[in-house]
């Protein structure tokens, strides 16, 4: 019964941490726009948190630059279990437009395990809402 309660709580209020791992800001402002009144992701219980220690879901935008990769790893390690990572945008999924740059890795999944991919350059807030809802459906 306790397991069931835990699962319900996680599903009803996933707290997210947004981390820019070398993105161009476009996905970042769309993530913020999704959390704002017009799209209102908060109605699903999604709340933006400031520290990885409070977060269940890490929203990663950007292809992970070489400088940011060790920090991304550390932020992932600081998150409590169970943790989910969502790669937001084409460049977080595979490198996108930045594929071939000397200073970027090809996607966040080169550094940390990823649970869901949301492609798009940049993503639309609707896509983010859809992606997060699908992820919650899996929990």
């Amino acid at each position: 019964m306790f397991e069931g309660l835990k699962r319900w709580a996680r599903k009803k209020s996933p707290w997210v941490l947004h981390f820019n791992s070398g993105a161009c800001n476009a996905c970042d402002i769309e993530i913020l726009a999704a959390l704002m009144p017009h799209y209102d992701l908060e109605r699903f219980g999604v709340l933006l948190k400031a520290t990885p220690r409070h977060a269940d879901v890490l929203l990663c935008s950007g292809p992970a630059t070489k400088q940011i990769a060790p920090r991304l790893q550390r932020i992932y390690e600081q998150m409590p279990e169970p943790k989910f990572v969502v790669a937001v945008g084409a460049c977080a999924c595979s490198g996108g437009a930045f594929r071939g740059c000397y200073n970027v890795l090809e996607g966040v999944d080169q550094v940390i395990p990823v649970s869901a991919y949301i492609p798009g350059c940049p993503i639309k807030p609707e896509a983010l809402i859809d992606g997060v809802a699908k992820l919650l459906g899996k929990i």
Partner: protein
Amino acid sequence: MAETIHLPIGPQHPFLKEPAKFDFDIQGEEIVGARMNIGYNHRGLEKLCEERNYYQCLYILERICGICSHSHTTAFCQATEKLLGLELPKRGLYLRTLVCELERLHSHLLWIGVAAHEVGFDSLFMLVWRDRELVMDALEAISGNRVNYAFNTIGGVRRDLSDEQRKKILALLQPLIDRLEYYTNIGSHEPSFEARVRGVGRLSKQHAIDMCTVGPFARASGVDRDARRDAPHAAYPDLEFKVITSEECDIFGRVLVRVLEMVESCKMIKQILDGLPEGDFVAPKVMRRVPAGAAISYYEAPRGEDIHYVRGNGTEKPERVKVRAPTMANLEAACESVVGSFVADIPIAIASIDPCFSCTDRTSVVLNDRRRGRRVTTWGELRTYGIDWYRRNRGIHF
């Protein structure tokens, strides 16, 4: 004298929307020194541009920064058009300027929201971002995308504006102007907001000039400098607008300058839509090979003057593209302006320049800094050092 404490902030921190690292020296509550470390967002786009042709470069440069994506492509297009010696059709220039001004609106609204959030005024943050959706709708109607518009092309723009779209944007404009009036009122008369921003993050006019600041940050310190007026480009020579400056020299001034600039932007958009010339929106024939030569173009991005340097070598690919984004010019001065403020003012003081680190993180430059013992190493010196190091430490000697 209190002991100096070293306070590192970043690269991931709630007040930073992007990765950057700041080091503050604090004595008690007061900040006595500030340094920054950027480069977490460096991707190497300038190098990537050298491997793409001019049209592909547009898509790469658009992704320098998602907030001012149109600025970078406009600056790049202008430089390339200079190299090609292209004469742009009037309608193309007007449409390009229309998106420029809409982008300025959305960027400044975004900033007002973030600034309100940093001082803890979250209801204003939410309200502003709701109104920002009006601008986003207009941009989506024009270009089909909300953030990276892909609207510019060399020789004009990629899409025409139908009469229906024109009316739609005009209809969106009026409610926005009403809301801006409300925000001007809040920005200048709300006592709790004023108490957080007045006198904080001071940067004197002389400092602003000495440190080469640009954009609203400089204009809030009384520096009357605007590339739209001083280096005419796009359709700006045809438009009537005021350059907003403020003598406040603090964050209060920066809020005022940005809000009033938005009002000016609305007026400009109205002028553009009312006087939209007929004709082509893109130059009929554009050569894919760009002649050899170099060109510099200036553009007043929402954050300040954006400079692009493009060197062509007669092929389809540019030989060199160099970007000087406005935040780069402002960051040093931002660190300077924080000194003397309290620790509690750090978020709003840094946010007040509207920092955009993905714009800034181009290449690392080490300046000749005798005081800290840093200096530029020439290629020859580096070679000598390398040979010498291996001889001493590994015993390799030729």
